[in-house]
């Protein structure tokens, strides 16, 4: 395949990974805990889009774009519920408890959805319907381009929300220093719940994008969670821009190695690269070392 085509494919995959990783890192920063169910929430968003498209009249040219706001809203609610079940009861406990509780909820989501919708792969409606586009020798589905645009808008919107609004400043303050944030009157638990809502809404959007371009099955969550986890690790623990860069790097690595060798080799090589990174640069490729203060 031509380099330009590979580049475009990797970019589209990277945009979807970036959306997954962004939601992951938002929750990570708010709670200092890994959300092991994040991938399953992405999958749930995709499945929700599939289910909605089956019941809604979507004979327009933009079926996915109509479903998107519903998925965002419903998944934000799911994120709140998720935090109430899997995070808040364990907030004062050791971080490893949250890790385990999210593993538990992830399994329940995965197998619950499998029970409801079957184990098969499903396809969500495309964001914009219509034939493929061709220019300069590159073939791009409208979906691919729409994925890039939607992902960029959602990531840009989140960045603006965090950087420019009072809400965003509060959210970041309570993530960086919960005690200080509380001292200046920020309601930290509300901010944590909001982070779950925002992170899970982004996960849902990512699921919608994935579920058209790459299909979605109840078992696809774990893999996506690992990708986000790796993106955050190589991008520098807790850094949102780092996570986005990490997600893009993973996508280019995967698409590149898969084209050169094969998909299983690409996946194995990704884990190999991850282990090397952890050993040689545990602070991430761009980050500063962050240890516990004593």
């Amino acid at each position, binding site marked *: 395949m031509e380099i330009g085509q590979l580049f475009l494919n990797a970019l589209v995959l990277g945009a979807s990974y970036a959306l997954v990783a962004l939601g992951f890192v938002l929750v990570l920063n708010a709670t200092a805990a890994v959300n092991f169910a994040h991938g399953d929430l992405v999958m749930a968003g995709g499945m929700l889009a599939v289910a909605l498209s089956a019941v809604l009249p979507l004979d327009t040219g933009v079926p996915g774009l109509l479903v998107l706001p519903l998925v965002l809203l419903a998944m934000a609610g799911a994120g709140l519920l998720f935090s109430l079940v899997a995070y808040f009861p364990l907030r004062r406990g050791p971080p490893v408890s949250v890790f385990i509780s999210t593993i538990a909820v992830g*399994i329940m989501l995965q197998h619950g959805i499998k029970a409801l919708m079957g184990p098969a792969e499903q396809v969500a409606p495309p964001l914009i319907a219509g034939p493929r586009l061709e220019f300069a020798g590159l073939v791009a589905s409208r979906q691919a381009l729409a994925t890039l645009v939607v992902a960029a808008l959602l990531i840009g919107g989140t960045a603006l929300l965090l950087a420019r609004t009072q809400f965003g400043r509060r959210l970041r303050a309570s993530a960086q220093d919960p005690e200080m944030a509380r001292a200046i009157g920020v309601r930290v638990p509300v901010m944590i719940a909001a982070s779950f809502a925002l992170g899970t809404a982004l996960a849902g959007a990512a699921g919608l994008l994935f579920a058209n371009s790459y299909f979605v099955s109840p078992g696809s969550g774990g893999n996506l969670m690992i990708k986000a986890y790796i993106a955050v690790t190589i991008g520098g623990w807790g850094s949102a821009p780092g996570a986005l860069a990490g997600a893009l790097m993973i996508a280019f690595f995967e698409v590149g190695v898969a084209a050169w060798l094969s998909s299983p080799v690409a996946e194995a090589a990704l884990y190999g690269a991850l282990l090397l990174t952890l050993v040689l640069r*545990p602070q991430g490729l761009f980050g500063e070392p962050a240890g*516990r203060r004593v």
Partner: protein
Amino acid sequence: MAARAHPSEHRIQLMRRLAWICAAAALAAYAFAVADSYVLRVLTLAGTYAILVMGYQFVFGQLGALSLAQGAFFGIGAYTAALLGLKLGTPYILNVAAAVIVVVALAALIAVPVRRLQSHYFALATLGIAEVVLIGVRNWEALTGGGDGYAQVPGMALFGLVIPRGWGEFATVWSAAGLLAVLAWRLQRGLPARVHALAREDPIAAAAAGIDTGRLRFNAFLWSAAYGAIAGALAIPVVRVISPEVAEFKVMVACLAMTVVGGRTVIAGAFVGALLLYPMPEWFRFLEDHYLIAYGGVLLAAVLLAPDGIAGLAARVLPAPRSPGPPPAPVTDREADASPARPRGGAALEVRGVAKRFGGLTALEGVSLRVEAGEIVGLIGPNGAGKTTLANIISGQYAADAGQVSLGGRTLTGLPAFRIARAGVARTFQTPALAAGLSALDNVATVCAGVGRTDGGPAARLRRAHGVAAAALARAGAAAYDMETVGALPHALRRRVELARALALGPRFIVLDEPAAGLTADDITDLAATLRDLAEAGIGFLVIDHDMDFLLPLAGRLACLHEGRLIASGSADAVRADPAVIEAYLGPDFAASGGTHR
């Protein structure tokens, strides 16, 4: 020491043994009564999972390190044993041994780079390894048979004797589980259990107690691998089919759920968890293959409602003290006094030209300082001056960017924290770093895992460690609280326990980070008297504090840090009157012009 209303250690041991025997008999009786080949098979496989979980308890239960490779160890163990039997026809017992060797060797290879990673990276690294294993067995078709795997794996045999299906396999697996339980118990009981608890609850405190947590993790990881391999190699001749299913993440999830539900740190919990959860797919047949929903539900419920598992719930009901009774020997016992003694005098603790930067921020620059044996030096400075950073560099928590720390001419810079603690430089923390779930005595006793004699059996070592700890608690003025759980002690006493832990190392120097903070005036007077006595006995102190009423009469010399530089040092009165010091604390308006450096 007052007698306490605890059943004697001996009686508890007897009761526990009785409980084990009863449980084993009940299991055998149940299997015999039902005598259904299907039930036997389920119970046999539950036994292999009990072994898997016991292995996981080494690394996750004892040390709290969330490894996600335990399922992969099971898988590789199963593949190794099955493929050898299928392709080479080697005797079963050799296949099991080979499985252990392969898996442990692999674990050792992995453990070297990952053992020191922080918890979330350790989890990811082990998860990555598990994924690589799964990709490998799925795609290396020539070796593993790919996605379909192989059927007709040979059954168990022992020295040419074919072990019959059903009862034979049941007896073999459960005997192995029993033996491995005894081995795990022997490895974990006594001092190691306390050391593991400290390493799990507070790795930094463990390092301060001279404990090599990296090595503990390395060993635990290898033990978990060996148990995982045995479990896989025992399960596969019962199942008779080898396919990637044995290496899938759901094995890991089942193992994690059994460990959390049964109890993370108690060996009996492995059996409870495996026997309760392994048959669950049978109990939830109406859910068909969606029983994993129930697995997730049980795991979630356990984490939320019974974080110590069923074994933890049982321990609350049954009389099982977390630590055995007080040491039988009085604290003046010779053994206790023989706590690691060192030749006194001579050697000084010396800091030369130390610098530390965090990114663009310079925390310390060109700091030099000397503490003589038996001397108390006070280190003062406004908040953010770099005092704790200096303490962290002396004790090895941080690496210095430049300069050197030495003890009597021996360079300490570059040594890990636990080695510096063993070398004779102890420290305490701003917020006391202790294992909240352990008694004061046990907290201090952990020190004996790293320093002092290592001969004798587990019971003798624990007794000796308790002797050393009791003596140290007495010197720190906390002898009366030895059996109290540290989490229940007031702040001032926790500081005493931390001081006792430092003393138990037999140190030449102790760095105290704000020892008077949060103490009442009476407590402070007591503490000052204790420190003076200890200095009298030859221990040198570097005391970081803000409380001048405490520090001035106590310290022979003061040193003042400001913005990472040492701006004054000398006699207490001279430093207090130094214009640079006044300026640092009160701002330029209050000070005479021109800073001095002496």
